[in-house]
């Protein structure tokens, strides 16, 4: 939107730029605080609550919402749904920036970020699910970078390098799906170790399955959601194919999301039954659980179905946004709200404003990077020199 201003030399003081600028300055200020005075100065983390929103939101939600990359590339390159081809590059870009944000956020969260390579090069704690998550996130960030690179290489005019990477598409896609399956599920499995701390309605031996299945829902919904926003702000960057396929993508992905949501609802219900948690539904946590299940799983499932049946694109788009919100609610529930549920309220965690500040800062940086890239590189249009269908 405001990029027009930048390119035509008009004022840079657009609302987006002003707000983003303020957020970035605030973020840099908190960053300095964090790395000079320690976690205690900028967070409300405690000995009881070692993980706050930098894990609950930035890591758990960030990774889930970045699932669009593997979902879309799998649909197009493995399942052969070529009509969604124009959705691949925006999804890969969103995924790449999402994972990049996650990794940056982890640098804020861990006590000694310069040691993040230690699990691989110094001592391998292979019994930890976090080892698996770390390995997969590191590898998948690399895969996403390579998958994204053709757009950058086309922009830079490096034909030969671009063509080599295009030939690796199938391999990268399969690797991406394998790695995503593993770490999306393992993020849920992180909490398997603590049955005594996570509320029994959310704790289940199926946690890894829940996280994986809901990541597909998140990925599908994010593609629709992102496409809606992009259409509003970057319409001039879209070519005819992209504009023509856009509605097709919303209908197809909405249909898939409805189906996966239905399956997700069923397995969640089975989880309650297997954990014999029926009686807990009558408690206040039960009410919150039911709200999540009915309001953020069953409802979007139904709304997607109606939207697809009636070809109501507006309904599908609103449902996508609602589903994304539902994924956020779910991850925050597992990571923060239903975690440590037995502690007295005085010991419970609520984020410090500076923790929220860093999360907002990182999302903003992601948006700025997204805007920078889509206004320059062939993301929403096919580069005229290349046959994009290869």
């Amino acid at each position, binding site marked *: 939107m405001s990029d027009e201003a930048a390119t035509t030399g008009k004022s840079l003081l657009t609302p987006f730029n002003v707000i983003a600028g303020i957020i970035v300055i605030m973020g840099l200020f908190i960053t300095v605080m964090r*790395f*000079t*005075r*320690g*976690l*205690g*100065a900028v*967070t409300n*983390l*405690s*000995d*009881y609550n*070692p*993980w706050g929103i930098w894990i609950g939101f930035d890591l758990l939600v960030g990774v889930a919402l970045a699932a669009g990359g593997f979902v879309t590339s*799998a649909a197009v390159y*493995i*399942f*052969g749904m070529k009509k969604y081809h124009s959705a691949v590059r925006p999804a890969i870009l969103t995924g790449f920036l999402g994972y990049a944000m996650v990794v940056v956020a982890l640098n804020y*969260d*861990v*006590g*000694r*970020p310069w*040691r*993040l390579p*230690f*699990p*691989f*090069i*110094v*001592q*391998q*704690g292979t*019994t*930890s*699910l*976090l*080892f*698996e998550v*770390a390995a997969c996130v590191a590898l998948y960030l690399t895969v996403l970078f390579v998958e994204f690179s053709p757009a950058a290489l086309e922009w830079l005019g490096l034909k030969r390098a671009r063509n080599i990477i295009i030939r690796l598409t*199938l391999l990268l*896609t*399969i690797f991406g*799906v*394998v790695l995503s*399956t*593993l770490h999306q*599920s*393992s993020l849920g*499995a*992180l*909490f*398997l*170790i*603590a*049955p*005594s*701390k996570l509320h029994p309605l959310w704790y289940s*031996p199926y946690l*890894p399955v829940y996280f994986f299945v809901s990541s597909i829902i998140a990925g599908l919904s994010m593609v629709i959601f992102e496409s809606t926003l992009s259409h509003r702000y970057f319409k001039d960057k879209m070519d005819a194919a992209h504009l023509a396929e856009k509605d097709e993508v919303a209908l197809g992905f909405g249909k898939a999301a409805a189906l996966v949501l239905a399956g997700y609802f069923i397995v969640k219900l089975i989880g309650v039954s297997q954990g014999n948690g029926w009686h807990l539904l009558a408690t206040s946590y039960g009410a919150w659980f039911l709200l999540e299940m009915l309001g953020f799983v069953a409802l979007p499932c139904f709304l997607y179905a109606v939207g697809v049946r009636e070809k109501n694109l507006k309904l599908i788009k609103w449902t996508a946004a609602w589903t994304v919100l539902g994924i956020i609610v779910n991850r925050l529930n597992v990571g923060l709200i239903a975690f440590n549920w037995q502690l007295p309220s005085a010991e419970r965690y609520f984020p410090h404003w500076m923790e929220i500040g860093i999360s907002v800062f990182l999302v903003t940086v992601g948006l700025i990077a997204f805007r920078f890239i889509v206004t320059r590189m062939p993301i929403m249009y096919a580069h005229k020199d290349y046959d994009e269908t290869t």
Partner: protein
Amino acid sequence: MSISRRKFLGWLGAAGMGTALGKKATAATNKHFKGYANSNGVLYDNTRCIGCRKCELACNKVNELPSPQQSFSDMEVMNVPRRTTAKAYTVVNRYDGIPGAKGPQYRKIQCNHCLEPACASVCFVRAFTKTPKGAVVYDPSVCVGCRYCMVACPFNIPAYEYDNAFSPRVMKCTMCYPRIVKGLLPGCVEICPTGALTYGSRRDLLKIARERIRRFPGRYVDHIYGETEMGGTSWLYLSAVAFNKIGMREDLGVTPAPQFTAGALSAVPIVVGLWPVLLGGIYAINKRREKIAQQEKTQAVDSALEKARAEAAGQLSAAKQKAEAEKTVAIEKAVSKALEEEAEKSAAGTADTRAEDAAKKSSEEES
């Protein structure tokens, strides 16, 4: 072990040598592990504890922790329940007004030194080790500071130096490991004036505890906390009142912590092994379907062309025939009936080939 040697071993581990070759899984057949046979532990008998906080004092000194704001002789701090922190590896809490209890009840908190520690299971740099001596020790030189150990610990023991910007550590009781390897008693055990703490082989401590319960059935609840909790802990507890009355969870179960993640971990290689097969298979099926669809399309186009060609040929020949017929009608008068029949036959023959040529040409142009 020096840093360089550990780093070297780390590289070896990364290259698949270290632990892969050094261990023989002799006990793997039944997958039941009883822990280190002669590991030590501490028995805490709450009926002997007077809440003097001497153990807290000794712990503070032995571990060179910062001195607290309120002195260790100040009993006021026990008015509210406390937990372990980065500055206190052990704390004693007082619980008043428990029905059926004779006076206030005390409970000492510190790391329980699990037989199968959750912290060790979840640490992705193996900073925690269950030593054969029984102590669970932490190595700050590899710790990344992810604090997963704190999430995992069912007893909420590890604490973190949140205020340390450059070298924050996880802090917890070490069972005074540096002292016990020298043959000394843990600081808290050594100072305890009432004999509420007993250090020794865990096997012996269990016998002692059972014996106390047997001899004074009215004094104790009939349970040794730590014997089976979370697969067993090196620290054992006897109490005069139900353990949940003195802030100890009785709902932890007997499953050793690593067991909770065993299923998820074992699913990882299955996904790696079968996903490429599944996805490669789906890809191949789709490719083949596309190929067949392509073939069918070409076939359909071919047959449609064939049909069109035949139709065109038929139409052309019919037109030619008609034209020729009209022509022959015109010259009919000039030639005899016999010649007329001859001419008609030959004309139809050439017209056929000509029409075919024309159809071919047009189909080529189309394609």
